[in-house]
């Protein structure tokens, strides 16, 4: 570390005053994502040391990539590693077709993410930083060039490309890819953080950049006691384009979803949970509440299924996609997911057999917890909640009736037939 990093932590390092109100991460209006506009809004990021980790703990920041793991604990594990060449990676490989929040954040506020990347590197004593994503853009290229010209970064930002696969952003797959291999998950010890590699979701790093400037107290001013702060959510509503919005954690789901036009809500994306719209009134956008209903925020995808769409057909399409996106490395996932997908397709059609439904339940149990990564577990959560939430629809299908009035697909799913299957496709 250079001498700059040994300066004391300053809660208000920049010239700008803490912004009250929302949004915090996204710009409040149409605003160029350039460095000048960023510095005018937030000021320069202070330099930090490992003491900053205590501030992150006080803020109560959790990972926004899906697992909601306490950020300070990951930081502390990496900071405690010996060795000279530690690495911090901003994970913006937002692989889920329904999610747009990291793309949007990098497009509209790239400097906040890159500030967070530098701050995390200072906090854990890393000497290298990377940005890992599916698609670069002019905004990102410009942002990196602006920072280089202004000389505000201690570490040069390298960009690594993720292959267009659902699991490319999984932590061990990311590490595999960055080390030159295919973006396939790996299994075993030691864990990624224990190897001196800190992988943080892009949004998590953006929050980090604000906590360094405005302090944990400011961060906790919105959100809930257990889960403070804001979160970026991607909202899919009937008839509309996907909307990325920044919300205080804990807002009522009814404020986001129009119950009148919806029959069910998918919370947490394609590894998430279907909930019937009748539960909407008792749900808030935080894991404490959602966990009680068997759901979780995940990476913040909320999809409101329109009336007239068949939930089973939607679920079957997504499960077919998830099965095709199995890395195919673990026997239970390789064998189980395609079978579940085929059975779900039967359930989505006319007169599914009871035996088929029973098989889905059996296979769901058979693949749970038996992969190197959580892909089978997340898929099973999606499948089980679909069978529960669309139980009435399933009974109709058994009587050769589908209540759908439209065959227009709602949830975005790439065409699985055009996806490359060679190992090169994972690089």
């Amino acid at each position: 570390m250079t001498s700059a990093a040994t300066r004391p932590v300053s809660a208000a390092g920049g010239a700008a005053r803490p912004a009250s109100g929302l949004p915090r991460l996204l710009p409040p209006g149409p605003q160029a994502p350039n460095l000048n506009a960023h510095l005018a809004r937030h000021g320069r990021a202070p330099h930090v040391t490992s003491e900053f980790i205590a501030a992150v703990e006080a803020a109560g920041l959790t990972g926004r990539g899906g697992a909601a793991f306490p950020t300070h604990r990951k930081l502390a594990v990496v900071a405690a590693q010996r060795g000279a060449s530690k690495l911090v990676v901003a994970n913006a490989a937002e692989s889920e077709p329904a999610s747009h929040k990291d793309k949007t954040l990098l497009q509209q506020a790239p400097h906040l993410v890159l500030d967070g990347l530098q701050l995390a590197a200072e906090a854990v004593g890393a000497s290298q930083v990377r940005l890992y994503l599916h698609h670069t853009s002019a905004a990102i290229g410009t942002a990196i060039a602006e920072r280089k010209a202004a000389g505000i970064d201690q570490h040069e930002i390298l960009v690594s490309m993720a292959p267009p696969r659902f699991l490319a952003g999984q932590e061990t797959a990311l590490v595999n890819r960055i080390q030159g291999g295919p973006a396939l998950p790996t299994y075993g010890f030691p864990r990624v953080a224990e190897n001196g590699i800190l992988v943080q979701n892009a949004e998590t790093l953006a929050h980090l950049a604000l906590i360094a400037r405005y302090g944990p107290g400011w961060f906790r001013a919105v959100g809930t006691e257990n889960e403070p702060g804001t979160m970026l959510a991607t909202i899919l509503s009937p008839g509309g384009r996907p909307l990325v919005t920044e919300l205080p954690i804990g807002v009522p789901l009814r404020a986001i979803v129009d119950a009148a036009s919806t029959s069910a809500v998918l919370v947490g994306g394609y590894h998430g949970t279907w909930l019937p719209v009748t539960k909407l009134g008792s749900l808030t956008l935080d894991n404490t509440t959602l966990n009680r209903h068997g759901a979780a925020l995940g990476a913040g995808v909320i999809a409101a299924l329109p009336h007239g769409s068949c939930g089973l057909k939607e679920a079957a399409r997504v499960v077919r996609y998830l099965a095709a996106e199995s890395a195919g490395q673990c026997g239970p996932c390789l064998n189980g997911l395609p079978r579940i997908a085929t059975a779900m397709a039967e359930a989505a059609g006319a007169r599914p057999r009871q035996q088929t439904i029973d098989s889905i339940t059996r296979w769901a149990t058979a693949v749970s917890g038996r992969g190197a990564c959580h892909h089978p577990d997340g898929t099973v959560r999606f499948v089980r909640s679909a069978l529960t939430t669309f139980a009435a629809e399933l009974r109709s299908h058994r009587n050769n009736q589908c209540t759908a009035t439209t065959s227009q697909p709602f949830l975005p799913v790439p065409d699985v037939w055009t996806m490359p299957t060679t190992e090169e496709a994972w690089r």
Partner: protein
Amino acid sequence: MTSTLRVNPIACGGHGACAELLPELIELDEWGYPIVDPQPIPPQLIKEARRAVATCPVLALKLIQQLRQLRARRDRDAVRPGLSLAAPSGNHQTPAGARRECS
């Protein structure tokens, strides 16, 4: 010292030798992949467990010492540069939960 069996699902090719040698703790799913009892291995089965581990043709089966002991050793050896929040007590979960915590 208590030990548990763990299978590396990526390495495992579903050969089935483990289930044949240790049916008390390992059964096969309908595709021939092992479902391993996560409980500590009873002392009277340790010998068979070691044999199953040694017989796996792709070395996918491992005998894991109780994580708590490994962690205690690691925490004792680790250099902790003034981070009060990385204290070994308090935040630690059960071994099964701890395995997955960062993924």
